[in-house]
């Protein structure tokens, strides 16, 4: 008399279950990792955009003066600005100055440039370069993103 009893799971079943669980775990970890990373990137992006807006508006407040210097006007305990290299200015624009800025431990590099488009009309350009992945103190060559603002002033 033969008794053919299947008890437990076969190797294939166990491996399939392990594969499904692995995919679920890796998916969950990846979701959390990228959501955290995107949150940090958004924070850096928003901060650098505000820095660019501040530079653009403060320079615009002087009607695009060619003696405008962010180090003199804006440097403070919470916002460190020093003269340094910066991203390249757009074609046909003349570079006024380039700076390294540190705010909330986020480092970015900015270049201010201008172009006289007509008599008494000047286009101001502010380019801010920042690094999406790492916000620690880095060189200009490590920056991988650029935020740009343009403004026009009468002078």
């Amino acid at each position, binding site marked *: *008399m033969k*008794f053919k009893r299947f*008890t437990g799971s076969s190797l294939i079943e166990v491996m399939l279950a392990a594969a499904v669980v692995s995919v679920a775990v890796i998916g*969950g970890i990846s979701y*959390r990792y990228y*959501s*955290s990373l995107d*949150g940090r990137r958004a*924070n850096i992006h928003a*901060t650098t955009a*505000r*820095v660019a*807006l*501040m530079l653009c*508006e*403060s*320079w*615009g*407040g*002087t*009607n695009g*003066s060619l003696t*405008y210097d962010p180090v003199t*006007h*804006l440097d*403070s*305990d*919470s*916002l460190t600005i020093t003269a340094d290299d910066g991203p390249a200015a757009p074609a046909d624009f003349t570079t006024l100055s380039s700076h390294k800025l540190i*705010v*909330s431990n986020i480092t970015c590099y900015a270049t201010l440039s201008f172009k006289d488009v007509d008599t008494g009309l000047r286009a101001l350009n502010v380019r801010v370069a920042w690094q999406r992945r790492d916000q620690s103190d880095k060189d200009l060559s490590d920056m991988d993103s650029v935020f740009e603002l343009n403004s026009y002033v009468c002078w």
Partner: protein
Amino acid sequence: MPKQRFNLKTGLTTIELMVAFAVGIMIFAGVTVLLVDSQRGWNRMYSRLYSDVVTDSFIVRKTFDSIVRKSASAYSSIDDEGSWLEVCYYADEFSVVPDLYARFYESDGDLNIEYGTLDPKQTTSVQTICSNVVNCVFKKVGTSAQMILTTEEDSQQITTITSAVMHN
């Protein structure tokens, strides 16, 4: 006739039970850690978006922007150290000169705005728009004004940078 033997295994052996128990504990521990960590991550993300310092930062930016942009640059004044900024603006479309003022200043960790009339110079109200201020400095460059504000609460520190251009 020989006796027929049935060697049927029913139930689980001790080894099987121990292995199942160990695997169960590992899965339970893993899921628990995952849940706790997810909850912590959610709280961190929530506080990054909706904590008091973040909402205060948003309100401060909007308030500074709305007041400074309607102000006349010729009538504004600022402290040499940048500890306060006073801007003047028109009460309505019938005003020929600025008749109201708003003064931004930090006091005892609060960022306040003092509203009042210019003629006679009289304070009408003081509004606190932000607490937990660590550092606040105002700048004025030409016709534009800037505020660099650092707030901190529960080890979360935020630096708010805002800028606005006044009219003539």
